[in-house]
């Protein structure tokens, strides 16, 4: 396993791996999001209580799940970066942070848009919303800490440490609907037994989640490629790549 993984610590191999993986993620993202949105927005039945306004779930829930998923991936990359001193993992942390922040912002905005007709308010100081907002601040912290350092090697390590420390917020978001009395509904699809949601709505939702994951993957890989090129710009292989055009 280690022998198989270790070559990817070299920037050039990692760059090639990004190139190989990107088409797969791109296909998954495009196919799943198109199917999921058309199915979810046009063909899924309307909710008996919320009518058509529930359909924002097909954007809201995937982005909320991916906002946390991106943070945990970022933290795992940060641990790898600090423990095995792998520079590419630091770059992955930096590549993931703005993507995760965007997902968090989408989740918050769609949540607010959903909250207005359902709860009668754009923003309620409820546990789930507040902890998701904290997640956005944590992403901002990682991004701005990285940009505050002149020396990007130091910056990468500092951002990694912060990413790991911020992980304590993830269980808080996850359990927030159980620990506090809150307006936000409990989890519907992340139960291991039978789901609390009808299959006709569940399937497009699951497809959307996969599609959003693919989207996060594509954007992160694109950013990671850029970061690798930026910090290896004086290496011969990058010059070859540029001269080949």
């Amino acid at each position, binding site marked *: 396993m280690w022998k198989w993984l270790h070559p990817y610590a070299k920037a050039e191999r990692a760059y090639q791996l990004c190139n190989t993986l990107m088409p797969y993620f791109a296909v998954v993202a495009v196919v799943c999001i198109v199917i999921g949105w058309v199915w979810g927005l046009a063909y899924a039945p309307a909710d008996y209580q919320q009518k058509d306004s529930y359909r924002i779930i097909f954007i809201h829930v995937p982005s909320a799940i991916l906002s946390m998923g991106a943070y945990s991936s970022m933290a795992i990359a940060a641990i790898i970066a*600090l423990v095995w001193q792998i520079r590419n993992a630091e770059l992955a942390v930096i590549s993931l942070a703005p993507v995760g922040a965007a997902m968090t912002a989408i989740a918050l905005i769609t949540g607010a848009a959903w909250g207005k007709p359902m709860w009668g308010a754009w923003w309620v100081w409820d546990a789930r919303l507040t902890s998701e907002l904290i997640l956005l601040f944590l992403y901002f912290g990682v991004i701005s800490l990285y940009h505050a350092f002149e020396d990007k090697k130091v910056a990468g390590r500092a951002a990694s*440490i*912060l990413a790991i420390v911020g992980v*304590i917020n993830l269980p808080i978001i996850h359990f927030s609907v159980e620990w506090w009395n809150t307006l936000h509904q409990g989890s519907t699809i992340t139960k291991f037994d039978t789901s609390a949601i009808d299959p006709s709505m569940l399937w497009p939702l699951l497809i959307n989640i996969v599609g959003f994951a693919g989207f996060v993957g594509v954007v992160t890989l694109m950013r990671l490629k850029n970061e690798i090129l930026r910090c290896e710009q004086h290496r011969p292989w990058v010059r070859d790549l540029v001269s080949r055009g």
Partner: protein
Amino acid sequence: MSVQHSYWQLFKSVYCKDVTLAFRQRAEIFNPLLFFVIVITLFPLAIGPEPALLARMAAGIIWVAALLSTMLGLDKLFRDDYNDGSLEQLLASPYPMSLTVIAKVCAHWTTSGLPMVVLSPLFALLMNLEQQALGATVLTLLVGTPLLSLIGAIGAGLTVGLQKGGLLLSLLVLPLYIPVLIFATSAIDTSMMTLPYGGQLAILGAMLAVGIITAPFAISSALRVSVS
């Protein structure tokens, strides 16, 4: 070569040095405390002096003021040692950095957190907090403020190498303070309804225990990154 001292001596000397330094420059102790006092005084002026309203908000106001005034002293925590080079000496010394760091955090708490804990009953009375909530306020601050110093020191360690770390520090640290704030104010709210608040206090205690074990490593690795 130099004589090896015991870990306890190291802890004591670092702690005593920091506390002595703080007492030499009184402003370092009194400014955060004065800030705490002024922030609390502003609230009755801003929202109106009705006793019932103040009592309802007292827990939150006292805790937010405590968070903000803890933040004030954090930037100084490693800054002076970094500027005069003694932080590098400490990192190069054969002693475990996590021990040095915890001594410094203890000193920070003694000079910033402890005075707030001591003064808090007075403010609880001024804010018309009911008698039964007085104990909860003091206890949550007693358990919570060391945790604030520990978490804050991680941010201070990360930003010590930056010229303008102060503003960034608050962005990094305040989100991490929120769990402490939630459980502390929930304990005080529960105590106002004369219900047992041991649960929230126990969670705060558990967070403090985890913080004491893990934060020193995070702080010292943050310092290593900043200084190198």
